[in-house]
């Protein structure tokens, strides 16, 4: 009998889960709207949406399976001896515990991930639609190259779009006479030198001086001198190298070589003079002209590394643009005394190469509402707790995106940066979207409870969400026990069979239990939400624990009251 009950309940659970997911998957498929999700993502959407719906309605499905399974498992043949109910039910209870653990994992990990995936799909669809509209407008205006750029970005999101592929071909032919954009250079500055001491830099400068590489010798000597101004030897070496470089210019065999050398020297001086952006573009130009010149390659990397500290490249931002990310981030930044700073970010995309932002907007104002400055920037990149707002093209100095100050301004050295208070992890949870809290696990909610309220988010909302996340596994287990007791209490007896009418009624069981289980969960939410808002977290934990204990004892008592006779 023991195995019979578990087997029956188990098989009904499996069948109801599969059927439930199948129905919800179909529901999501039927309800698919190409207005909100790209048609190419139809199946993925149905799968993810089906899963989220399945998680939302898992409790009634689960309860129905247990109740039906239990109600059909006690059909003992008349005359056979009755086994004690405690033995009948023991292994089923263990199974319920394991299922509760599985449910907790799915609810805390799988469900939030699926919700995020849905949001990402919607966001990428919105972006694709925007790109398409822009591409069509640009094509209409005869700007084929820009339109092609939009189409290519569109195709990064929706690769299988036939009409957009066709449009790309058309645009390519239309733009054939125009020069193709310069290919993106390989990421420069990858070979970042480790931080060296002044002594090590001087040694390096001396090494290059002995080899006759006066550019490198000058570069390292200057760095050593900047690091430790007391190093006379570094200064001397830099001066000597500078003279040698000047001498080299005069000793070039022909005018072309002298001009080339002069260009390299100018670029080099820009680099050492701190004008990294100009130096970067000069070296890019030189690298295009002299691809085999090792000096140019070396200093291009160096300039690129320096540039990446104050700006980032447009192709990086464009590459991440179609990627999924956190939407609508809004928070109060540390504004300092008598000043407030609010930041709004359209989207944050986290990839291995870094964290990028789209549509950054920030405003600084005082308590009386007087705006000190107000900026917007199309792109941003997080670098050591600061958002870099200067976005440059790798090869074209004429193309760069800088923050636009709508009101006021900031000192030149701060204009293109925005220091942010929240960490990268905290930024994820500062989203103003309704599902922001649903994405968080209990541990994250607990940690963020302290930090997020200081950035404009309500502690009460976090606490309520935390309590519900804590309670859900218990609610699942208790509902399992109640369903088992109910199914067993209302089981078919005396060798009778449910009959055809009973089979027809079976689909009604999840419906009826949906009403019951959703009301049960709603009651939980009301009690815990009320306790959190009225009395705080500690009281809510106590009340929640007491409530679950009472319900658990009640469910177990109900179960213990059953007999197998």
């Amino acid at each position: 009998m023991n195995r019979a009950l578990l087997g029956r309940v188990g098989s009904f659970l499996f069948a109801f889960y599969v059927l439930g997911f199948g129905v919800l998957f179909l529901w999501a498929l039927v309800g698919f709207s190409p207005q909100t999700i790209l048609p190419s993502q139809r199946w993925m959407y149905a799968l993810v949406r089906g899963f989220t719906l399945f998680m939302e309605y898992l409790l009634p499905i689960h309860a129905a399976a247990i109740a039906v399974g239990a109600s059909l498992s006690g059909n003992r043949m008349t005359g056979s001896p009755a086994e004690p109910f405690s033995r009948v039910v023991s292994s089923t209870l263990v199974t319920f515990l394991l299922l509760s653990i599985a449910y907790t994992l799915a609810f805390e990990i799988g469900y939030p991930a699926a919700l995020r995936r849905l949001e990402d799909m919607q966001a990428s669809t919105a972006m694709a639609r925007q790109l398409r509209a822009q591409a069509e407008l640009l094509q209409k205006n005869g700007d084929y190259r820009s339109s092609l750029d939009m189409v290519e970005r569109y195709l990064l999101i929706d690769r299988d779009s036939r009409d957009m592929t066709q449009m790309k071909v058309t645009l390519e032919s239309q733009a054939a006479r125009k020069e193709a954009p310069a290919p993106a250079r390989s990421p420069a500055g990858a070979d970042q030198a480790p931080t060296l001491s002044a002594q090590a830099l001087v040694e390096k400068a001396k090494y290059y001086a002995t080899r006759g590489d006066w550019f490198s010798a000058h570069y390292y000597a200057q760095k050593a001198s900047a690091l430790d101004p007391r190093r006379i030897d570094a200064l001397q070496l830099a001066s000597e190298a500078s003279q040698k470089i000047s001498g080299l210019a005069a000793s070039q065999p022909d005018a072309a070589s002298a001009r080339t050398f002069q260009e390299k020297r100018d670029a080099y001086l820009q680099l050492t003079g701190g004008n990294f952006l100009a130096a970067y573009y000069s070296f890019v130009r030189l690298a295009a002209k002299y691809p085999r010149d090792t000096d140019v390659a070396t200093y291009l990397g160096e300039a690129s590394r320096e540039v990446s500290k104050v700006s980032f490249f447009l192709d990086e931002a464009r590459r991440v643009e179609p990627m999924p990310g956190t939407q609508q981030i809004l928070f109060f930044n540390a504004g300092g005394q008598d000043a407030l700073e609010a930041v709004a970010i359209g989207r944050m995309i986290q990839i291995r190469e870094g964290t990028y932002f789209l549509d950054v907007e920030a405003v600084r104002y005082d308590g009386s509402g007087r705006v000190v400055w107000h900026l917007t920037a199309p792109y941003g990149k997080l670098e050591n707790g600061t958002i870099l707002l200067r976005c440059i093209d790798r090869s074209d100095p004429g193309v760069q995106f800088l923050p636009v100050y709508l009101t006021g301004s900031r000192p030149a050295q701060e204009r293109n940066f925005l220091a942010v208070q929240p960490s990268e992890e905290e930024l994820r949870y500062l989203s103003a979207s309704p599902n922001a809290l649903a994405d968080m696990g209990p541990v994250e909610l607990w940690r963020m409870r302290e930090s997020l309220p200081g950035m404009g988010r309500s502690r009460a909302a976090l606490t309520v969400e935390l309590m519900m996340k804590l309670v859900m596994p218990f609610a699942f287990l208790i509902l399992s026990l109640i369903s088992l007791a109910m199914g067993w209490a209302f089981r078919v007896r005396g060798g009778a069979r449910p009959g055809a009418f009973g089979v027809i009624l079976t689909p009604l069981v999840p419906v009826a239990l949906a009403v019951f289980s959703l009301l049960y969960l709603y009651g939980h939410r009301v009690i815990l939400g009320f306790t959190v808002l009225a009395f705080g977290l500690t009281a809510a934990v106590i009340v929640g624990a007491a409530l679950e204990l009472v319900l658990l004892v009640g469910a177990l008592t109900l179960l213990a009251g059953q007999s197998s006779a």
Partner: protein
Amino acid sequence: MDKLFKAPPGVLRCGAVKEPVKLPFVFLFILICVSAVLSALSVFSLWGSVDAAQPFTFSYFLLRLPRAAFDTLVPSVVLSIVLLGLRMARHRFSRFLGFAIVLAVGYIVMVNGMIWLSSVAAREKAVRSARPQYLRPLTFLRIGDAEVAPAAVTGGRLAGVLLYEPGRADTRLSVFPGGTAEPAGSGLAVSLSGSGTRRIEGDPEVPGAGVFAPDRFTGLFLRDIATLTTDFERLMREALPQFFAASFALVFLSAASLMLLRLTRWPLANVVLLACAMRGYFSLYHLLATRVTQSMAAVVTDPLLVILFPSAAFLALGLILLLIDILFIPASRWTGGQAA
């Protein structure tokens, strides 16, 4: 000795007498428990979703309780009948006696309860909270599609207000030197002034209060209950005889529906069927009250008669169920099965 304790012939056995006598008290006990739980949940939910800006006090609870009890009385009676039905199905005694007891007690309790609670709830003064209290310094509050965060709040006056509108094409953030917040209908209106003026109006999404928002199915259930209660309240105020008739119809249908517990040989299916039927009655009432009566109103001039139409339908449905019970369903289906 045995003869001393043997019941004389012609007298009902002890168990048979006890159950009908106990039944009204059991019903009342269940009703009180159910009503207390639902009323408390209703008050908690009301406070959390509407009045959370003011502290929750015992006096607030007492003030709101009569109205909450009134609002939850109808579902409490129906639920109590269902729970009592589960008990009745397991005890062998006259089903007509059981039906009569449920009908009588349920009807008396519902009618008197609604009248009494209505008079008590009428004393409750409309305590509308100062909704501007939802606005806290440097905390975002969503109103409609926008989010508002003042730097300082003094009563309904705001200073240094940050407004975030994600849907705007140009700039999403705007700062206003000052503004005012005041209740507007069921929501909140924030008027902002500065270089320009703006008015944000809508239901504030109070942080944490989203937990009190019911899911889709529970929301529909609560809507149906509210429709029924509102109609009954209107009948009670405007025409007491019609109110008595409507209440009788509802209790009659609920009591007659207990026959569903003996419909098949599968008890779980019977219980499920009863639960679905009870849930369905509320939806049916809503449907009849909102759709069918509209077309009836064009024909029938008396508005009270129009309101009574759903109750008449309930009465007819109850009679059909009662006839099915009498003609087709063996009285001992469930208890007989148990005995077997």
